């Protein structure tokens, strides 16, 4: 069906546009420049700056083109004298209070990009005091409208500068375009910024001028990205001028697959710029991606030279020596005593090369990645022939009901969390009875593009998303499988299952139904602590308001197969597979978890997720090859790896940072960070995207693929050093990748989700949860977006650690009373061989012998180096909650 086209003339050029577009969009599409200040591609038009006014034939006045819908036969002129005069006069009165040194300096002709001089303008409006000099949209507009003279005395507002971390605010530069207010509210759903005062003194502020973090800011930097002037700027590198080189690449922090643009100047990463065309994230980031990159790449802890341990100490060596030592160690050890540990932050190519070296070069089945026990996800493989998503991030826009289980997308995959908020916050606008009206604030009456979606949260503790949820199911920790099975039983009993879908597209339903039939809902209630009515309500909501999208995270994975199997079955029973807006979206812990599975860098799963008959055995390891840095050795989970390493004769560490692993390393091969290498990564929606090198590796460090190729060569395995060739090899083996060309992944990486013709129901094997041993408390970790989960050396991310919330241990009132813990007081958490102190928060929502904490690092490491803890989902080798004892401190 061909869409109707609208033809109009802009500046004498015939332009074709879609109906519903604005004149501004049509002009931009045709490459005609119309100046704008308050308009922004990510936001609804606001119509305040009036820079985009145009003249339209047979129309009175000068309408703002950002709000003017196109119409057939419209004749628009964008730069007549009258229009330019209006723009010029507005700018002229605008810059009476906007520092204008950069426009009026008589040395402007001799000025070149970003070279500050201290000579001419008065300090109030000097160009070098503005961080946006040469990156300023107002400058560009001034150039366009040809401001030649300023007839009006300049007044400096003298507003105090902001003192917030990460974001530097200087509202003396603000032009009140309201972009920051709108992006924070419309897009991010937070509304930290607001307009304060009226008339000429209108200014942007947080509510009551409180610090940004107190106003609810999550430091996503969206306001910095949209600010057209220098009022909101990233604190770091803000006076470094614009980047000389822009590199589009993929964020390596979490698996959303956010594309961003790295600004590089003289070999240094200055900052991260937004890419509003990015397919997964549309120009939105979280604090890690937005502010944590430059620090991460240019870090004093980066490894710069290969090292080999001689006489007990690591000494610098040449690459040839180091590679030879590594190859020798691998060759000299019996294959079954060699283990490979990889982080799933590596690219697909590196992971593929690694498994090739391990399997073909060494011949060992001991291949381990972050998520050691991938078999928890096997029900996905059973049903869909692969472990992976059956939906995409774009499906969030189409789904009617979200079921979020064992996950906090707001903190772990913030851009996905943001999207959920966008579609669940828009209030369906209904007024309460008149008598209540005065107590009622309806919030922003956004033009509802569609009705808001339902949100069902299944989580033992409240998260940020709770305020948007229709139902919060407070499940007893570790019993999600029972709960989901109970939902399925209700759906089957009440005839809400999609029988047609089940008959047509699934196999194994009868066996599955038989297993569910025996389930006793009272038993489910008893085990999960969720009442029967609530069970019925949630089941009805999810089954009736379709399409439904299931998102699950580490909270489910650590519970093992049954929970994942139950979720897969729930999707199949309700027919929520293979339809727009429906499906399952696993929220992994690290950037390329999906890629690691596809590339087969896991024991038991070969490239293309082919089942292999491999059983890893880590008991008699003599040689370890570790690729990556996100390995912890201190906490309870890390202790197991530490024990393995202590037994090893050779430990080859290939990483980018000087991590505690170096204490055990016999060979150190300096790799690179994601900003220094080429390749592809696969996001949680299975979108394959290109990672690009933006800066040169420090010192002698080499791209990881190059190192792996060298190792492979010495072991007799052919691995190309060129990512394109490795990708081609990988693409032959992964079904979805067939036909993908590395070079063609240029801007918008494709989603390679292919679904089988029929879906098999997984086995549902429910086991009664074991009671916790006496006296031990189960602690469940959460995650904070201020932290890279690389807790091994959080010193790396100095920028991010400037914003911190304290480590808080949440306990229920009953437990706190029993242990004598006071709200806000300290508590010592004692685990198996480790202990630390946290602050107690008593949460009325919690009951039983469970506790939660946000897994994050606070302050410098304590003397014993133990003040760090692992994050089970992203971490090895033991996943899941911890059993600890709690003791009050000083009591």
């Amino acid at each position, binding site marked *: 069906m061909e869409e109707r086209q609208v033809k109009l003339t802009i500046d004498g050029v015939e332009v074709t546009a879609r109906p519903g577009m604005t004149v501004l969009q049509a002009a931009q599409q045709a490459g005609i420049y119309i100046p704008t*200040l308050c308009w922004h591609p990510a936001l609804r*038009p*606001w*119509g*305040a*700056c*009036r*820079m985009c*006014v145009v003249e339209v034939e047979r129309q009175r*006045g*000068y309408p*703002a083109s950002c*709000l003017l819908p196109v119409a057939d036969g419209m004749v628009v002129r964008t730069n007549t004298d*009258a229009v330019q*005069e*209006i*723009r*010029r*006069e*507005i700018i*002229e*009165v*605008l810059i*009476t*209070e906007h520092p204008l040194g950069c426009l009026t300096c008589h040395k402007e002709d001799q000025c070149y990009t970003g070279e500050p001089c201290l000579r001419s303008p008065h300090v109030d409006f000097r160009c070098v005091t503005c961080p946006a000099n040469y990156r300023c949209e107002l400058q560009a507009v001034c150039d366009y409208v040809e401001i030649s003279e300023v*007839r*009006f*005395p300049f*007044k400096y507002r003298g507003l105090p500068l902001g003192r917030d971390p990460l974001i530097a605010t200087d509202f003396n530069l603000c*032009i*009140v375009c*309201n972009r920051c207010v709108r992006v924070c509210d419309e897009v991010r759903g937070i509304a930290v910024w*607001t*307009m304060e*005062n*009226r*008339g*000429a*003194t*209108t200014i942007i502020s947080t509510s009551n001028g409180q610090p940004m973090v107190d106003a609810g800011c999550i430091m996503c930097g969206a306001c910095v990205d949209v600010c057209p002037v220098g009022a909101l700027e990233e604190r770091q590198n803000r006076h470094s001028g614009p980047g000389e080189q822009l590199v589009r690449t993929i964020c390596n922090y979490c698996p959303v697959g956010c594309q961003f643009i790295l600004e590089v100047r003289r070999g240094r990463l200055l900052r991260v710029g937004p890419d509003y065309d990015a397919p997964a994230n549309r120009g939105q980031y979280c604090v890690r991606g937005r502010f944590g990159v430059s620090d991460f790449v240019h870090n004093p802890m980066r490894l710069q030279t290969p090292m080999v341990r001689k006489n007990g100490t690591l000494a610098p060596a040449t690459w040839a020596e180091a590679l030879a030592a590594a190859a020798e160690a691998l060759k000299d050890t019996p294959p079954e005593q060699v283990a490979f540990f990889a982080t799933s932050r590596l690219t697909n190519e590196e992971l593929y090369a690694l498994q090739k070296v391990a399997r073909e070069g060494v011949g060992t089945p001991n291949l381990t990645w972050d998520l050691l026990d991938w078999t928890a996800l096997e029900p996905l493989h059973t049903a869909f022939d692969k472990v992976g998503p059956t939906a995409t991030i774009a499906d969030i826009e189409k789904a009617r009901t979200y079921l979020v289980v064992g996950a906090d997308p707001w903190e772990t995959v913030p851009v996905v969390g943001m999207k959920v908020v966008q579609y669940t916050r828009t209030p369906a*606008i209904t*007024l309460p009875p*008149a008598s209540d*009206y005065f107590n*009622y*604030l*309806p*919030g*922003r*009456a956004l*033009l*509802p593009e569609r009705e808001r979606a339902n949100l069902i949260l299944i989580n033992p503790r409240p998260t940020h998303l709770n305020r948007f949820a229709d139902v919060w199911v407070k499940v007893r920790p570790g019993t999600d499988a029972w709960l989901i099975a109970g939902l399925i039983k209700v759906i089957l009993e009440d005839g809400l299952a999609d029988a047609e879908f089940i008959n047509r597209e699934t196999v194994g339903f009868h066996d599955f139904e038989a297993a569910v039939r025996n389930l006793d809902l009272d038993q489910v209630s008893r085990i999960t602590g969720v009442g029967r009515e609530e069970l019925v309500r949630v089941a009805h909501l999810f089954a009736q308001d379709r399409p439904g999208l299931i998102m699950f995270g580490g909270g489910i994975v650590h519970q093992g197969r049954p929970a994942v199997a139950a979720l897969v079955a729930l999707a199949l029973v309700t027919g929520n597979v293979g339809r727009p807006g429906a499906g399952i979206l696993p929220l992994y812990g690290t950037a390329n978890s999906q890629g690691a599975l596809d590339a087969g860098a896991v024991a038991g799963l070969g490239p293309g997720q082919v089942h292999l008959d491999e059983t890893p055995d880590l008991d008699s390891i003599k040689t370890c090859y570790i690729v990556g840095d996100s390995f912890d050795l201190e906490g309870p989970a890390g202790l197991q790896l530490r024990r393995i390493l202590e037994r090893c004769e050779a430990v080859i560490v290939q990483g980018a940072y000087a991590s505690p692993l170096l204490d055990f390393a016999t060979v150190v091969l300096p790799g690179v960070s994601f900003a220094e290498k080429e390749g592809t990564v696969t996001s949680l929606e299975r979108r394959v995207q290109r990672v690009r090198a933006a800066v040169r590796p420090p010192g002698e460090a080499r791209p990881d693929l190059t190192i792996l190729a060298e190792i492979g060569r010495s072991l007799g395995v052919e691995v190309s050093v060129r990512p394109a060739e490795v990708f081609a090899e990988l693409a032959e083996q992964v079904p979805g990748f067939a036909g993908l060309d590395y070079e063609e992944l240029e801007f918008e990486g494709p989603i390679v989700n292919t679904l089988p013709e029929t879906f098999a129901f997984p086995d549902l094997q429910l086991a009664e949860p074991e009671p916790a041993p006496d006296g031990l408390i189960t602690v469940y970790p959460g995650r904070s977006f201020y932290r890279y989960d690389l807790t091994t050396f959080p010193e790396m991310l100095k920028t991010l650690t400037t914003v911190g919330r304290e480590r808080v241990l949440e306990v229920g009132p009953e437990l706190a009373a029993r242990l004598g813990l006071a709200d806000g007081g300290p508590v010592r958490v004692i685990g198996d061989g480790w202990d630390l102190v946290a602050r107690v928060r008593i949460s009325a929502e919690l009951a039983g012998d469970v506790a939660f904490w946000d897994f994050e690092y606070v302050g410098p490491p304590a003397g014993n180096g133990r003040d760090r803890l692992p994050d089970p989902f992203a971490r090895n080798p033991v996943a899941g909650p911890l059993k600890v004892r709690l003791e009050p401190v000083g009591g």
Partner: protein
Amino acid sequence: MSLETLVAEARSRWERKINPDRPRIIISAGSCGIFAGARKVKTAVIDALKRLHVDASVEKTGCVGLCWAEPMLDIQLPGRPRVAYGPLTPAEAAQLIEDVVGRGNPRVDKALYVYADAPYEGIPSREDTDWFKLQYRITQRNAGIIDPEDLDDYLANGGYEGLARALTMTPAEIVDAVKKSGLRGCGGAAFPTGLKWEFCLRARGTEKYVICNADEGNAGTWKDRLIMEGDPFQLIEGITIAAYANGASRGFIYIRDEYPLASSRVRTAIERLKARGLLGDNILGSGFSFELIVRDGAGSYLCGEEMGLISSIEGDRAMPRSRPPFPATNGLFYKPTVVNNVETLANVPQIIARGWEWYAGLGTERSKGVRTITVSGAVRRPGGFELPFGIPLKTIIYDLAQADPADLKAVQMGGPASNILPADFVATLPLGLDELRDAGTTIGSGGLVMIGQKTCIPNLVLQLMEFLRDESCGKCFPCQMGTRAYYNTLYRICRGEGRPEDLDFMLDIAPAVQFGSLCGHGQVAHVPVVDTITHFRHEYEVHIRERRCPQGVCELSPVATAV
């Protein structure tokens, strides 16, 4: 209860009220009267009655529009007509009561008029006085006569005839009648009301709203207050008819926060109407339900702007949205919405009750109907007059308000951001919407401010601009920054620090402010500046070149005087 029964009961009560068996003292208790001292007058009256040992009923009424005569009171003795007296100090009022009630002396010296067809004891009949003989009171017809908190008074005086008739018509017929009547918006823009209703009626959507804009913020305009304080029932009847005609089941009346009395009277009226089944569910058994919600203004001038008002009701900062889409299709909560001024809606009941032909016969061919004009400033008798279109402005200024021709310098027409024209020019114009537009001006919201010879024009504009600057909502650049630039420039001029090029600068940025601004506030913010530079340029030039203020109003800076 049917309307007939209600009206019959109300009529009998009203008859008893206006034919009393004991003295009636009716105190004019609008905000204007109260500020002028009506409360003290009331106390004095009660004390005087006590001293006289007379059993009398002391009642209240709204303002009749004679601001200069406040505080006023009416006295009716049994078997005599009702006589209005004013202005009165408390002592004078006490004396008056003693004379009139105690001694039967009609006190012709203090009397204004009598509510009778013929003069009484030498006191002229109300309709023969200068102030009333030219008026045609529709929205104000009950103001100053009835008790604004007594529904029976309103019902006995033709109340709810309009709604009763409207409920027998289809919405389309009502819209058609309003269209044909020629009623135009009284808030300033003078958009044909029927047309606006038609857009809303045709707009898709089951949920629609009616909003009454009672955020009367223009300096020199108080007509809406007169209606809300004098006769709130008529306004609510009008809103109810508008709701019925537009298919709205919920409406808002957004009352300026500075009008606490108006707000309280409207709230009281809503309670009274609900109690009698004239508002709320199933009005008069017709099946039509309408809920009216009073919303207190958020205190900014821009809350009175149509779109700003909508934002404010939605709970947001009052910042106008861009048009189109217009409120008729995307208004409150993006639902079709009719936003009308108080006076516009207060005209509707009579238009429906008496028929559009009657209303269309008033006024002139081009401007139909009547309009309340409030006159203030350099006049002897400020007040509010409801006048049919076509009357010369000269008559209003010199005859009704009794301005001194020798003292009058200029006239500002309808609001702080409106034309400031020389008095001689204004005297040549008739009252009329299109007629004034032809002359390049407008009646705006109907407030005429007379500017006397002692006023320094640049200083006046400076003060207007301070208001306009502070009340700009801060959204669009031209308004926010243009008013700031105007203020700063005028400030310098009035300080004696003006520069010759300042006047050209102000004229230069006028088109940007006018055509660039998002809403009416900015679009007209330049008008006082441009008008006064056009008509009173010499006053600016004296400030700039000679560094002195001819009227001696501006405080010139010492640096400037030294030149």
